[in-house]
């Protein structure tokens, strides 16, 4: 059997605990996630899914334990290779889609042409002048995804991308995620609607009370 190299892992967590004052969100997550796969993270509210994602994204630092992403623990230096989409849109309501993306493209130092590509990739019209605040929920989520993939991330973290999104948009987004995965990029998707990703997910990760309790390549029947 070939030796497993550290670089083969997109994310390794070792005893990660995250505590906010009197509340804990993670209480010892130890796991390895291979690169180039699509992981679906499932669990009840308060199980620590979002916090795990934020820790991987480098937004929150673990209280104890270490987390390493793409082979390094200093996630700060990796930011150009990470994409993050949260439950809130992470967009300015008073600007149009392209204006939003142009600003963020500047932060990543990617060319402006990339903005149009990203918007087209999520099936929106880059010339739409409407402000993001006036978008429908489905459009806003798609624009939010466009922002997350602006920098062609090697690691894409999505927190509830399909919530309040109509069926058709959700399927389009899922198809796009499949395409990204097929480019050998790693995806983590937190969702309450695993059914949408059943056909494309590589692994389902179950979380409970701040710990990973189970991992399986098939969706548990009760969750379908």
């Amino acid at each position, binding site marked *: 059997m070939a030796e497993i190299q550290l670089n083969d892992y997109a994310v390794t967590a070792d005893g990660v605990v995250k*505590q906010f*004052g009197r509340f804990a969100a993670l209480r010892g997550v130890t796991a390895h996630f291979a690169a180039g796969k699509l992981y679906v993270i499932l669990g009840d509210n308060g199980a620590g899914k979002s916090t795990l994602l934020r820790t991987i994204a480098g937004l929150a630092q673990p209280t104890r334990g270490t987390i390493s992403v793409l082979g390094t623990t200093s996630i700060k230096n990796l930011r150009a290779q990470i994409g993050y989409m949260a439950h809130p849109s992470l967009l300015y309501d008073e600007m149009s889609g392209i204006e939003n993306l142009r600003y963020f493209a500047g932060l990543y130092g990617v060319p402006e042409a990339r903005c149009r590509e990203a918007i087209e990739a999520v099936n929106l019209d880059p010339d739409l002048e409407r402000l993001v605040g006036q978008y429908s929920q489905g459009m806003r989520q798609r624009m939010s995804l466009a922002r997350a993939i602006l920098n062609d991330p090697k690691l894409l973290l999505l927190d509830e991308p399909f919530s309040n999104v109509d069926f058709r948009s959700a399927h389009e987004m899922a198809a796009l995620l499949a395409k990204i995965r097929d480019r050998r990029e790693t995806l983590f998707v937190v969702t309450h609607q695993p059914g949408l990703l059943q056909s494309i997910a590589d692994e389902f990760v179950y979380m409970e009370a701040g710990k990973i309790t189970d991992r399986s390549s098939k969706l548990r029947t009760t969750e379908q």
Partner: protein
Amino acid sequence: MKRGFTLLALVTALLLSFALYEALIAAPTEQTMGNVQRIFYYHVPSAWTAFVLFLINFVSSIVYLIRRNPKADILALVSAEVGVVFCTVVIVTGPIWARPVWGIWWAPGDIRLTTTLVLWLIYISYLVLRRFSTSGRTPVIAAVVAIFGALDVPLVYFSIWFFRTQHPSPVIGGGGSLDPRMARVLLINWAAFMCLAWLLSWTRYELEVAKRQVEEAQALESLLEGSR
């Protein structure tokens, strides 16, 4: 450790009693101010002690930012809190002194008293911040605020110093040399108060360690309960 604590408590009690005797009885009566001058033996050592504690707060905040050692953070918190207690003593005894000597309770132009008041305000806001923080990294934020507060001290001092040159007011103990007997009593009192500060800080330190253990246990428990 327990024995060390008891020993320190004993030494502190003895020193404080001796210092009290020295301050009230052994020290000579000052000629112009009379017995009121004896407030000096509590007021000034308390101020020095508070400054030492705030200095410890500053140093341990920097150490925390560099080393990320939780002990440094606890020390920063403890020294600020005990420092505020001593600072309170200074601010309360100051006016009690000023009233019979100058005929006024407060002289805004007095550098030391006013600087102490500003320090008191700064460290109170530091302690309030620590209590109100929702961050998962309260120690980092607290350390940053502590450093800002410490940087402010020389600016406060100079601004009040210059303010005084424009608005003259009497100064406590400024100029003039101190009778050596008085200086001795002053130093004995300072030693006693430093011991008291050490004792209080030690107690508070242990309390904080216990508090954090409880907090962590509670945090984990609340998470488990939430999942049921």
